[in-house]
């Protein structure tokens, strides 16, 4: 075993409170997630001396105000405005801080609430660049840049809607076996996927996530501590975060994964073929394909073939993919969407998933992608996790 993050583990995976709309604020979601992590780990609240928080709807409150709300005295407070890349980045930074001895236990939490209209407000005011250069063009929100990106990908590689559909249908199957997936009661087949109404073609209804409220979280601590608590945990073998990679590409058909993916496997002393479980960031299915390609599960432009050749279900022969149903079938709880993959990976590796438990889940690749600023996502991340004490 390599030692990039030697002696540090991830534990106590929690997905809390998923619901379409909520009257509760972010502190309610984050606080309940924290309480549940304490219950799972047996830790006292006073043991938590680090907090890493990702949230879009926390304002006008701040991460510091959460410390006060929760009565925590902290030595590390990390705000993670990285959207879909934030879960892996939280794990990476928290692991470094624990490893360096700055803190003992870091609670990493992604949480957002959702009220009618809040998603529209978020989209309308997302960044200066989107306000100047994207929103005035039919106010389609992220659907516009991702439709353009999807169209470019299809033009370049000949990908068909059916190929994107395979991802969405497999994830819905996984969600049908996952209790907190908001769309888990509804089946989805390829014919229904293809017949769905247009949003911004080539994007149709089932290519787009449903905004919702919820929290996803985990704890980072030293291995000895997890052992003494007698709780299951996973190793973080390698992780990267990257920003504004390949910025001169006219269309974003690759990101940090293509630049840093090979080193990620090398650091973890593993290979793409040895990965049991893949948790990608699925705000749109084309982004799943970019992650599969960038992380060398297949060559550039070959993701359609990959999804034809692999079932992508939690109970399939090949690697399991987005075993909870992903955001496409669980819902996108704002920045918690950036934690969904890593939290599900911890749950799967420690064999604490429910009916959607994958049979082989000793190692996992988790990838993240976030912050579409104008025409591209600026943040990318990835981590390789493996079984510690299960």
């Amino acid at each position, binding site marked *: 075993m390599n030692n990039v993050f030697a002696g540090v583990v991830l534990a106590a995976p929690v997905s809390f409170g998923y619901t379409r709309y909520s009257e509760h604020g972010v502190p309610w979601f984050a606080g309940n997630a924290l309480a549940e992590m304490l219950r799972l780990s047996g830790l006292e609240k006073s043991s938590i001396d680090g907090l890493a928080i990702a949230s879009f709807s926390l304002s006008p409150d701040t991460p510091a105000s959460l410390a006060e709300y929760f009565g925590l005295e902290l030595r590390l407070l990390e705000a993670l405005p990285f959207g879909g890349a934030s879960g892996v980045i939280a794990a990476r930074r928290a692991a470094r801080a624990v490893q360096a001895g700055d803190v003992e236990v870091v609670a990493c939490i992604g949480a957002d609430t959702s009220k009618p209209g809040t998603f529209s407000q978020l989209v*309308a005011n997302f960044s200066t660049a989107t306000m*100047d250069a994207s929103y005035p*063009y*039919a106010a*389609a929100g992220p659907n*516009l840049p991702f439709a*353009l990106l999807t169209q470019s990908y299809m033009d370049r590689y000949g990908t068909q809607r059916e190929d994107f559909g395979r991802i969405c249908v497999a994830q819905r199957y996984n969600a049908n076996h996952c209790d907190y997936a908001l769309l888990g009661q509804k089946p989805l087949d390829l014919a229904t996927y293809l017949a769905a109404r247009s949003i911004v073609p*080539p994007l149709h209804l089932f290519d787009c996530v449903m905004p919702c409220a919820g929290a996803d979280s985990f704890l980072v601590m030293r291995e000895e501590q997890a052992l003494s608590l007698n709780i299951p945990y996973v190793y973080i073998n390698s992780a990267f975060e990257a920003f504004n990679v390949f910025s001169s590409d006219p*269309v974003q058909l690759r990101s940090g994964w293509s630049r840093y993916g090979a080193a990620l496997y090398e650091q973890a002393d593993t290979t793409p073929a040895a990965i049991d479980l893949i948790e990608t960031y699925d705000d749109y299915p084309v982004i799943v394909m970019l992650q599969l390609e960038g992380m060398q599960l297949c060559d550039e432009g070959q993701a359609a073939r990959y999804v034809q050749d692999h079932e992508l279900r939690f109970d399939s022969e090949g690697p399991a993919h987005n075993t909870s149903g992903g955001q496409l079938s669980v819902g996108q709880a704002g920045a918690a969407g950036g934690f969904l993959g890593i939290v599900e990976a911890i749950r799967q590796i420690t064999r604490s998933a429910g009916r959607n438990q994958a049979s082989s889940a000793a190692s996992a690749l988790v990838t993240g992608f976030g912050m579409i600023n104008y025409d591209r996502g600026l943040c990318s991340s990835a981590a390789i996790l493996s079984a510690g004490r299960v």
Partner: protein
Amino acid sequence: MGEKLSQALLAGRLELPTCQRCSNVQYPPSEICRHCLSDALEVTACDPAGKVIACALVHYSLALDFDVNSPWPIASVKMNAGPVVFAHALEFLKRDTAVTLVPIIDSIGDGVFGALANVADRDLLQTRFNRTI
């Protein structure tokens, strides 16, 4: 800088923020040159020609006056001058279509880009916005 750009477009001028030190054309608007970090940016005339990267028909929008019965084409255009811009289009534009960017006034009175395969269609594109101004 976004405000200055919008004013130029409102006045009918196809201009973009341009670095006075290294000549890099900036978009989306910024107060600092992405290339050399100079703050000497001026909104000045630039080559309005470009090629379509991709086009999408918007069927679903958050805009209150959006007519769901008439899907709205938006193109991403790689300008000869360098940047990629989103622009309103008259119809679906195929990849690599040569287009000219033109200034348009949108339905809330802001200056925005149009992308036309035939620059003579500018008035036609402008009239699509005229219902609420």
